[in-house]
């Protein structure tokens, strides 16, 4: 309901802006060159971004301040600055692996910066920027299980997140090593952790950066790392202009060393 109201208000507001722009005569030739999708974001005055809220260092909602912070939030701010000239004009919305695709499609958010792994299959549905981060898949197990490597997981159950590329990557590695695994998929990371604690799964496997957030006294992260995954900023497939703009921003951040500064700010390698 609230979301609907916000959309309505935004639509009204943009109509007013457009109307007043018309009555004022054609005095903005520079803006006319912009693609309509980008112009829409400009008119709205805010970039709507989907980020994770449960991944420390990337996108995490601090329970004390209630603010969403992280490496990916900072990247989103850089993109907002590029489009709107102000890095604070971002409207952050928490997404999960499952909701980020549909939210992009229905226009609820403009871009996704949420540990979104780039794959060829996904590129058919969305535009991805060049990668801004590379991370391997890790394995989190209970200390008491005595499991030390993927080989020890032969015949065991692995808990993975829905909409994650983990299952495929681990399966390929398992095939290589000639071991058999079964996978159970869950909607959120806390559910996988709970399943691990309850002994429903023997291993919690997602991107390593995410696993660090769930490490505690009873669990340990194995040294194995599999199939490096690259994260990209996703946007709607039809919105080519926005995709180009995002990519330019990412490449700028890379070339001027800003991205490395951000990584060290958040303690990422």
């Amino acid at each position, binding site marked *: 309901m609230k979301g609907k109201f916000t959309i309505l208000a935004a639509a009204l507001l943009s109509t007013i802006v457009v109307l007043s722009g018309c009555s004022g005569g054609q005095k903005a030739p520079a803006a006319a060159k912009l693609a309509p999708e980008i112009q829409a974001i400009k008119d709205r005055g805010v970039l709507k971004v989907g980020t994770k809220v449960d991944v420390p260092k990337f996108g995490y909602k601090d329970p004390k301040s209630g603010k969403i912070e992280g490496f990916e939030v900072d990247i989103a701010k850089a993109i907002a600055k590029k489009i709107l000239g102000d890095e604070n004009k971002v409207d952050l919305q928490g997404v999960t*692996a*499952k909701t980020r*695709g*549909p939210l992009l*499609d229905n226009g609820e958010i403009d871009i996704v910066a949420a540990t979104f792994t780039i794959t060829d*299959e*996904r590129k*058919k*549905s*969305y535009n991805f920027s060049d990668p801004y981060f590379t991370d391997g898949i890790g394995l989190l197990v209970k200390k008491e299980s005595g499991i030390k490597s993927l080989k020890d997981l032969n015949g065991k159950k692995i*808990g993975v997140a*829905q*909409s*994650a*590329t983990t*299952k*495929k990557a681990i399966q390929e590695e398992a095939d290589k090593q000639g071991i058999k695994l079964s996978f*159970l*998929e*869950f*909607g959120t990371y806390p*559910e996988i952790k*709970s*399943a691990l*604690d*309850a*002994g*429903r799964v023997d291993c919690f496997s997602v991107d390593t950066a995410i696993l660090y957030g769930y490490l505690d006294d009873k669990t340990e992260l194995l040294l194995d790392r599999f199939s490096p995954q690259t994260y990209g900023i996703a946007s709607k*497939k*039809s919105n080519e202009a926005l995709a180009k703009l995002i990519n330019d921003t990412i490449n700028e951040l890379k070339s001027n060393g800003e991205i490395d500064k951000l990584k060290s700010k958040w303690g990422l390698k």
Partner: protein
Amino acid sequence: MTGPFAWFKWEALFAEWTVFGEGALMTLAASMLALALSLALGVMFGVMSTSHWKIAKAISRIYVEFIQNTPLVIQIFFYYHGLPHLGLSLPVFSIGVLGVGVYHGAYISEVVRAGIQSIPKGQREAAYSQGLNYVETMKYIILPQAKRIVLPPLANQAVSLVKNTSVLAMIAGGDLMYRADSWSSQNLYYGPAYVTTGILYLMLCLPLASLARNLEKKAEVHA
């Protein structure tokens, strides 16, 4: 076309239709067993709640209130994530049958109670005066009449039971909803996936609904 319903996404679904087929079978199996369990529990507790035996009444009340007033998801989470900490790790399929069966058993119990209580007191008194005991009165006089009244709400329960087995998706249950989530989350072709899943649930529920309608008609003819 690149929208959520792009043709190539449908093609991918048709190529891997067995994923959905297996899920539908699993949902069907869990539903049938859960339905049998819920009917058994429902009739038992429904009859108990109308008896004059206070303890039976109290037990039935506790069961119904406890189950009816907590969300199904919480109950399922308890069986799946909670019980193992108490040393009991049930397989996920049994959790589906047990969880959904117990949940709908409580509702069916209320349906049965309402049905029994809707039969005029005189019927019972007349049965007793003919020398029938409690069980015989129930079996020959009360329940056959109550059947007519409880069939429509019972059919509702059966249909919503089938749909409620979709909570298994949250505990990696391998049911239809889980398969749809799993398949579509891998490739993000969620458009065709959920439309197909919706149609499959419809195909599972419609025959049940029409079967119930037939039974209803039959019951009315005999009445």
